[in-house]
């Protein structure tokens, strides 16, 4: 049951995200660019740092 509820929850989140994308993409292209851009900057900085950290740790080990 918990799995189904979680699935429905994330489905709703996805639907809201798609709806927002359509609305923002139509009228607020730059706002949409900010959302996507910020997420990308955060993800690249975080993932890049974590990956490099792991790589150096492996080399040291």
């Amino acid at each position, binding site marked *: 049951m918990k799995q189904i509820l979680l699935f429905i929850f994330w489905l709703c989140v996805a639907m809201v995200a798609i709806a927002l994308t359509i609305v923002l993409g139509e009228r*607020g292209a*730059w706002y949409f*660019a*900010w959302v996507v851009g910020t997420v990308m*900057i*955060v993800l690249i*900085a975080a993932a890049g*740092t974590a990956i490099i950290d792991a790589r150096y740790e492996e080399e*040291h080990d």
Partner: protein
Amino acid sequence: MQELDTVIALSRTQFAATALYHYLFVPLTLGLSVLLATMETIYVVTGRDIYRRMTHFWAKLFAINFALGVATGLTMEFEFGTNWSTYSHFVGDIFGAPLAIEGLMAFFLESTFVGLMLFGWGKLSRGKHLLVTYMVALGSNLSALWILVANGYMQKPIGSSFNPDTMRMELTSFTDLIFSPEAQAKFVHTSIAGYLTAALFVLGISAFYMLRGRHLELAKRSFRVAALFGLFASVGVISLGDALGFINGSAQPTKLAAMEGLWETAEAPAGFNLIAWPNQDEQRNDFELQVPYLLTPLVTHGFEESIPGVKDLVADAETKIRNGIPALTALRTLRENPDDAQALEQFEAHQDNLGYALLVQRYAEDVSQATDAQIARAAADTIPPVATVFWSFRVMVGTAFLMMAFLIVSVIYSLRDTLLEKRWLLRVAPWMIPVPFIANEAGWIVAELGRQPWTVYGQLPTWLSASTHSVEYMIFSLTGFVLLYTLFIIIEMFLMVKFIRLGPSEPAKAPVADSGPHRHSSQWSEI
């Protein structure tokens, strides 16, 4: 008139001083909040304790900056009412809504979560604390959004109309207001400029630690996160700067002409003035160094459009002033008799240029009797101070590319883990801390001085917007601000330097109910 001019000049000086001062704190708050969220994300995902300490340390510096940013922002909201009461009356219906939402965002959303972020360590679970940090980042940037929506309206009035009954602008479409291309591009450009500011701030301080061999592991990791974060932000800020220039070009041709030092209309493909010495009195550049064919594609994103120069824009303003004068005379008739159908018809036929007629009112009380010389003088006023705008723009763009170049080098050496061998880079990094602040201030000068002589472009002249205070009052309040803000900056610098010298303190309490991975750094003892 002499006293009025002095009061306006003092009001402008006071607003410029408080805005530029406030804007020293804002970008760092915007960017550092997102950078903190990035650092904490790494902590939550990897479980490495060093990232928790990193987040905790930079959050302290964020808190100092945040407090002064809020304090200096408060005065500006009041300044609209105290020093710019005609402006507030004229566009309060439009300007008030985003400003009120900004207040709510800043004081309820942002401030609440800042408290939870700073004092929630050891009380909230890792996931919840991370959520709180993201809410701080979102709240900070959303409060900037509303201010920039309001500012976007001043740059390009949209979603409103003038009501001759109430003699003020009224909101006709809230969605047009918030989705204005000017507001959108301005927000994204400003927000990402904040990311860049925060990245250079963290890089500089981390380099300082590495040079002195202190907190090495924390500093190296902070440097790496900030370098990656800043490099992508620099690409974003330059792209959005180009977009903003493109949007500005059509919305405010006078600002564009000043930014580019264009006196004559430039036929395609026009050359870009890399360096020039504009002479506003003689309407020409005393000296210029051009890059051929570059300006047209930069500004129009094409190869065919011509770009209007100052001389043609002044001639165009003269036409608009003459066209706007009947609207202003009709408005005066309507004020006496609101039912005068003929006056209403005359007003509606000319209302698009009402703002231009208000420009000539500065020189001719009865605008219907304005002489050609007075109209020409008012038309010449429509051009902002060219040299200041021209050079501010070049400082902003030049420093943006300098930062990007520096970040490319920083990322390369950081990823190769050879930072400690590149002492020159570590020595340069602290000197890069002021660079984004200079770029931000220069950008703000381009935006605001470039809009002159208008508070609301094409609608309300600056000379008509100020309150009617006495000169003594303005000098008193300006002196008060200068003294108070000087004290603030001394406190800010003292606290920043103190906490930077102290460095990361004892480990903060770990968030409770840890359920994810949790690993201590192997170099814990070095910290």
